[in-house]
């Protein structure tokens, strides 16, 4: 059977959308040095608003279009004004901020003055032209895309090539500092870039929406963004034309692949697999050119600007700290006696999320390797539980699953030896998507050459039932029992991570993160240390995955949705990146608040991207910073009660917010 030309054209039309998104990503990357995870969401707001104007208010299509594109441009500019405060912060932090931004923008689409009354209705298209290729009918939406997308990109290219703004953008892409020194208005230029990107995103969403079948608000989903990222990476995050053409190429390749796959059940899985391979390939091939030259930003260390580890030598402060820890532990341990079954289940969840957040503290907080795919590792653990969960005693299963996941994690970490920062984030996000949509969703697949069936996925991807095992003969079937078990796992994890922190593991990870060359020259094995971080983190995520699977008892591919990975990143950022109590507080904040206080608008607002953004902007040390200040306050209070004057010189400078110049005037 030969390939019908309509398939290629269909792929190309899809690819035009990816290309437009990719161009937007490159545009932002060139000026702000950040992978903009809000690129899709910027336009979705506009597309939703267009539907509102067109159907609910009866606006003319073109008027509605102009208004909504202008809205997206304004939102883009506004976003830049917010993110501008992070100009000197690590780029990875800014990237997490764009994730928060995209969540805030999602909230926008829920507001009644933007959200249309009916979400599932045909997206308006101003033309009704159609055409046939073979037997395939191309819709008016397709025609519109074919006409508009190239024009938009050409116009943008001309703007960048010929206008003075464009020249400034190109200069900034090469070296922002020099550009600034030679009189380019860096911030204003970057605002212009974001404005353009907003408008571009709106056009993308308007073009992509007519052919979508899902709800309007999900038109530019994370996997679509990942496709666009793939195209942008092929363009080296710099070249607009290459990114655009690569987008079309990705569209065609995927469509042809999909058409070629005869077995419909394994179809999507195989496509995801190829996509994953393509993504890793693009990252590895491009790694050299992405990280060379003056772009120190993405190579520089994590450098959070927070004190490395808060260490105190004051006995009183230590007592206050351990009293606090002991009291809260006791309180939590007694909790299942007083709360209902639902809340006991919630307690298990928070504890397990705490472990997952800790695993990210090790990998991202200490080792500086940004993982947006931590739930990929959790999924490995869950998958193992679904296969051998009933065969092994729990006390053996946990470390076994942990070790197996550590192996997978190290394999993923091998890419981290060549790429890091933003690119590693993209790579790990790809891994998490691949785990969910390809590995877990395919119960069995046959290996072509060996003629063997390998059953590595969930036995039933939609719903796999697990029965909770017992621990030392004690049944974990009741929710309070499982809550205590989860708390036990969390306590063991915290003790373990504290040992790593205080007994030499953490300092090696941080040294390699902060100054790889010096660490190597001092005799620290750099490669092994980096992989060690992946192994330790994967180990924890793996046994947490087992716990999560048993906690929910019924798992599906959705249990391990990659968006949870982003939730975990938010937890760690909100809690305080390199802090152990911070990870736990973050888990409590994001998992606990909504469940305890219900999904009131206030809580949703606080725990959504708004909260995340606020934390990044105003509290870089996270909740841990608050906790430590509170501890200091209590400790000082107690000291005053004991009528001992607090000795200012005894406070460790930098550790508890004592400014250095006060200590050494």
């Amino acid at each position, binding site marked *: 059977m030969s390939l019908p030309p309509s398939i290629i054209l269909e792929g190309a039309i899809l690819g035009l959308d990816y290309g437009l998104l990719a161009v937007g990503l490159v545009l932002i990357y060139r000026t702000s040095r950040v992978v903009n995870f809000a690129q899709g969401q910027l336009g979705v707001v506009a597309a939703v608003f267009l539907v509102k104007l067109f159907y609910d208010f009866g606006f003319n299509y073109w008027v509605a279009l102009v208004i909504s594109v202008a809205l997206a441009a304004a939102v883009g500019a506004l976003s830049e004004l917010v993110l501008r405060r992070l100009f000197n912060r690590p780029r990875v932090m800014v990237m997490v901020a764009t994730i928060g931004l995209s969540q805030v923008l999602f909230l926008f689409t829920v507001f009644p003055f933007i959200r249309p009354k009916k979400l599932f209705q045909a997206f308006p298209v101003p033309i009704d032209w159609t055409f046939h290729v073979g037997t395939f009918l191309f819709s008016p939406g397709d025609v519109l895309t074919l006409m508009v997308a190239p024009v938009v990109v050409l116009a943008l290219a001309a703007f960048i090539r010929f206008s003075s703004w464009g020249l400034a953008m190109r200069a900034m892409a090469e070296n922002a500092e020099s550009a600034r020194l030679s009189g380019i208005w860096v911030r204003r230029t970057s605002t212009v870039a974001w404005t353009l990107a907003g408008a571009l995103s709106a056009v993308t969403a308007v073009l992509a929406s007519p052919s979508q079948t899902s709800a309007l608000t999900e038109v530019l989903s994370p996997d679509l963004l990942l496709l666009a990222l793939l195209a942008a990476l092929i363009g080296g995050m710099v070249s607009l034309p290459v990114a655009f053409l690569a987008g079309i190429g990705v569209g065609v390749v995927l469509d042809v692949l999909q058409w070629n796959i005869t077995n419909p059940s394994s179809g999507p899985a195989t496509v995801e697999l190829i996509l994953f391979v393509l993504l890793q390939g693009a990252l590895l091939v491009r790694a050299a050119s992405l990280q060379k030259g003056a772009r120190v930003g993405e190579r520089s260390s994590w450098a959070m600007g927070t004190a490395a580890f808060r260490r105190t030598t004051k006995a009183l402060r230590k007592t206050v700290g351990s009293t606090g820890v002991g009291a809260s532990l006791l309180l939590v341990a007694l909790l299942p006696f007083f709360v209902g079954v639902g809340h006991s289940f919630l307690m298990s969840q928070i504890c397990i999320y705490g472990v997952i957040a800790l695993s990210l503290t090790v990998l991202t907080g200490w080792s500086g390797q940004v993982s947006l795919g931590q739930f990929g590792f959790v999924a490995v653990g869950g998958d193992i539980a679904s296969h051998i969960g009933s065969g092994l005693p729990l006390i053996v299963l946990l470390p076994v699953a942990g070790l197996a996941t550590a192996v997978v994690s190290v394999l993923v970490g091998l890419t981290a030896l060549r790429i890091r920062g933003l690119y590693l984030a993209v790579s790990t996000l790809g891994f998490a998507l691949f785990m969910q949509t390809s590995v877990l969703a395919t119960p069995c697949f046959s290996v072509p050459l060996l003629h063997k069936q390998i059953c590595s996925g969930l036995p039933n991807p939609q719903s796999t039932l697990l029965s909770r095992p017992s621990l030392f003969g004690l049944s974990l079937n009741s929710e309070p029992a499982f809550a205590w078990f989860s708390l036990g796992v969390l306590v063991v994890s915290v003790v373990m991570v504290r040992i790593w922190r205080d007994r030499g593991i953490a300092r090696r990870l941080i040294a390699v993160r902060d100054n790889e060359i*010096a660490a190597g020259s001092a005799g620290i094995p750099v490669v092994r240390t980096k992989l060690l971080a992946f192994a330790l983190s994967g180990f924890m995520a793996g046994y947490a995955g087992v716990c999560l699977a048993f906690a929910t008892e019924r798992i599906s591919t959705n249990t391990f949705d990659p968006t949870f990975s982003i939730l975990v990143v938010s937890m760690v950022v909100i809690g305080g990146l390199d802090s152990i109590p911070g990870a736990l507080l973050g888990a409590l904040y994001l998992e606990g608040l909504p469940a305890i206080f219900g999904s009131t608008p206030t809580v949703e607002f606080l725990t959504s991207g708004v909260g995340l953004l606020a934390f990044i902007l105003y509290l870089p040390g996270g909740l841990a910073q608050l906790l430590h200040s509170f501890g200091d306050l209590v400790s000082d209070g107690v000291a005053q009660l004991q009528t001992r004057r607090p000795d200012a010189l005894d406070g460790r400078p930098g550790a508890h917010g004592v400014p250095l110049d006060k200590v050494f005037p």
Partner: protein
Amino acid sequence: MSAVFPESGAAVAVPAAVTTEKGGPARLDIEGLVVAFGGLQAVAGVSLAVEAGAIVGLIGANGSGKTTLLDAVSGLVSPAAGKVLFDHEDLADYIPEERARLGLVRSFQDCRLYPELSVEDTLLLCEDARHRVDVLSTTLQLPWARRAERDKRKAVDRVIGSFGLERFRYHSTAHLSTGTRRVVDLASIVLAEPRLLLLDEPTAGIAQREAEAFIPLLRRLHEVTDSTILIVEHDVPLVFELCSTVVVMQTGEVVAAGSPDEVRGDPGALAAYLGASDEAINVSGPAPASGASPAPSPSPEASPAPSQSTPPSAPGG
């Protein structure tokens, strides 16, 4: 004697527990070394022999290939041709961390260290490199892991005491002044027990007066670590004062080598790095040999006053 090594004699006691495995100073032979970046040969066929126990200074104008030479010796760049021999052993197959374990230690020009590690952790790291404890033993806190960590802390405590770093123990290095960071760097060098020490501009970013204090400091370092030192330095008088052999490089080649007096008397060598200006030669340290006073005796200003001129200065100033 400077306050960095507070009392002369045994003040900087090299911890007994870690001295056992260390050999004496190593010799370094560089044979026909070529390092090329693209078409540019940063090091164009350098041959150099550094005797065991010597202090050799490497000087030359910016871009003459001094740091690249150090990079090649420490394994950060791989040479296009030529050999580096450490005690007659070819280092070609050794990656930087393996060279470090042989006792080849280097300091860096920027002395950035690890911004977010505390001084204590930075020093403990040097111990980690030489006393490996596997992760499992650490996690389970097995007896030998606990003992190893205790020994490391003891060694570090001694060095912190003798370098006067006690009050900076819990500071992250990012918050230290450049001078203090240099001292931390020197402390790590003592802990690392080098057999061959490569110093890349140890006085860069330090005030002239403090740089003068570095001469006795480096001598002491040489004595305490019992090592061979190859030092790259822009402060020419410091090099002439300190080194037994001076090597002059120009555009990737060695143009002169010999005792300080020989090099000083070689007008070609002078032109290579200074444009033969007497003022530059006399920036710090004693007057040149032609003067009335003999070279080694420092003038009053040059002799370091213990408390003022030493590097550990209050940060944040």
